[in-house]
């Protein structure tokens, strides 16, 4: 009886410790985002006077309305949407095809192809900026969203391919084989059987790439000059020099820009875990 109650109280302590630990993680994760929001809501006058207060004496939505109505923010936002959605679409398409090849075929040169993809993960991207800048200008694509979409698509393909490969590895091959014995071609089997099962995996890849493209700054700075073509990270920096550093406005714009990528990510993170569970760790 006593040993039982000891293990019981031990269990309660352990569960309390776990809850406390999780609470720490949540606070750590959300605190900077909270502070970002606090700055965006603080009137400019109060910002430096009483900056370290946990909550400002008065709040205002003025920064948000100014950002939306009187700056190029909506243009940046729209450009970012175009670039991120297109990048996510193309990466998912190409990475699905490549991941399918890695998962379902045994062919000569496969290990080299995998090695090449791993190798690209080691490139200092900074080093590619100057050559890419020259190639892009040479092609007359400078200052166009197309150039950003092409560059981002290439950068995101390797990791997305490994992700998709692990999703495909998680789908039993017997399903396709059965369909192929019943007279389907490989492509038909892919379309009717495998494709519906990989949809969560594709959603995860789509979201992963979307957030990556949404926040890219360096290449956006290098390849885009004019205001009407800027994506929001570079636009936001530009914004600083133009109006002096209006931190409230900048943080308000930041909060607004956070919304799509956070929504996307909250929606897909479940599939990310699920998909990786089914395949990646069999080795």
């Amino acid at each position, binding site marked *: 009886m006593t040993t039982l109650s000891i293990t019981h109280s031990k269990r309660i302590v352990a569960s309390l410790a776990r809850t406390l630990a999780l609470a720490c993680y949540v606070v750590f*994760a959300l605190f900077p985002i909270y502070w970002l929001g606090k700055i965006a809501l603080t009137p400019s006058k109060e910002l430096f006077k009483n900056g370290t207060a946990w909550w400002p004496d008065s709040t205002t939505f003025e920064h948000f309305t100014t950002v939306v109505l009187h700056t190029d923010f909506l243009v940046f936002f729209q450009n970012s949407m175009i670039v991120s959605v297109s990048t996510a679409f193309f990466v998912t398409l190409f990475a699905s095809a490549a991941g399918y090849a890695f*998962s379902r075929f045994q062919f000569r040169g496969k290990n080299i192809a995998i090695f090449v993809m791993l190798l690209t993960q*080691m490139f200092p991207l900074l080093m590619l900026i100057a050559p890419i800048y*020259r190639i892009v200008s040479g092609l007359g694509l400078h200052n166009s969203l197309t150039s950003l979409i092409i560059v981002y698509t290439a950068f995101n393909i390797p990791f997305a391919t490994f992700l998709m490969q*692990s999703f495909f*590895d998680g789908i039993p091959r017997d399903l396709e084989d059965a369909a192929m014995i019943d007279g389907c071609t*490989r492509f038909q089997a892919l379309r009717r059987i495998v494709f519906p099962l990989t949809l969560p995996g594709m959603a995860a890849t789509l979201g992963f790439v979307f957030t990556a493209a949404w926040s890219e700054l360096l290449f956006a700075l290098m390849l885009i000059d004019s205001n009407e073509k800027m994506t929001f990270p570079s636009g936001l920096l530009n914004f600083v020099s133009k109006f002096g550093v209006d931190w409230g406005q900048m943080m308000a714009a930041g909060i607004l820009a956070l919304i799509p*990528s956070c929504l996307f*990510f909250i929606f897909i993170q479940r599939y990310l875990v699920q998909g990786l569970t089914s395949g990646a760790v069999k080795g």
Partner: protein
Amino acid sequence: MEGQTIKSANNTVLGRNSPRLSPHRKTSMFSAKMRSVFEPWLYLSPAIILLVLVMFLPLVIGFTYSFQHYSLFRPNDITWAGFANFEQLWSDWKFWKALKNTVWWTFGSVSIQFILGLGLALLLNRTFPARRLIQALVFLPWAVPTFLSGLTWAWLFNPVIGPLPKILYAVGLTDSAYESILADPAIAMWGPITANVWFGIPFFAITLLAALQSIPKDLYEAAAMDGASAWQGFTKITLPFLAPMIAITVMLRTIWIANFPDFIYTMTKGGPANSTEIVATYIFTTAFRRLDFGYASAVAMVLLLLLLAYAFILLNMRRIQAKG
């Protein structure tokens, strides 16, 4: 690790279902063979073509820059330099300092991210109320654009407008509530590392949680029946199962972080007194402040070689471990 995964997956399947061609279709052996050779490359081609054009071609061009005097200040005076850029690099104390800082920055960030990420994955790998909501919230930092989080963390560390100096002083970690740790060369690196840990925990938590969920539950039950403690279960079952995922994620993150200038650039710009300058930010300032592409490319080349060596050693260690 990837190669291994594929091989084991394919072996099991090929063993069972060797006659893969449909018996109903009259395909000659030759065209079947041609198809099995070309079909995978057909699926791979868009990815490969893009990688060659957007990554490998620029890499080769960048490689040639590293042997040239190539400065945008003197655009008409681009000449071959032989190994001059590399000789300059050998005696450049800023580079060596940046290299040392890179090791510190990368090792500090990866190890803390990994430990905290593993802890979070273990906490999330059980059922409790509102698990989905909490999981979504703790993974959120990964979705915040990096330059925005860099700016926010710089704010948090600022003594006039941020709360952290007060808190750090109150718990006795710093000597003054009115100084930013970002201004002190001895400890400035902790600023960007903190931001990076915040940003990177979700990556490890997601990948390791996935690995945890694929461990068969009955293994633990069997171990508990044999009287194993929770700690034994962790070291004898959990860790060995996680090992492949740990190896690949630690390798990838190390390389990504060594190449990752965003936080340092937005928070300290490499200062004070070069105390947070890493190779990646040094490349950035050399190329885009001083517009010296030749020298920047030489530095980038050296970084690439070092990372390749690191990956090579790590992969070989894994192979030896797997054999032994």
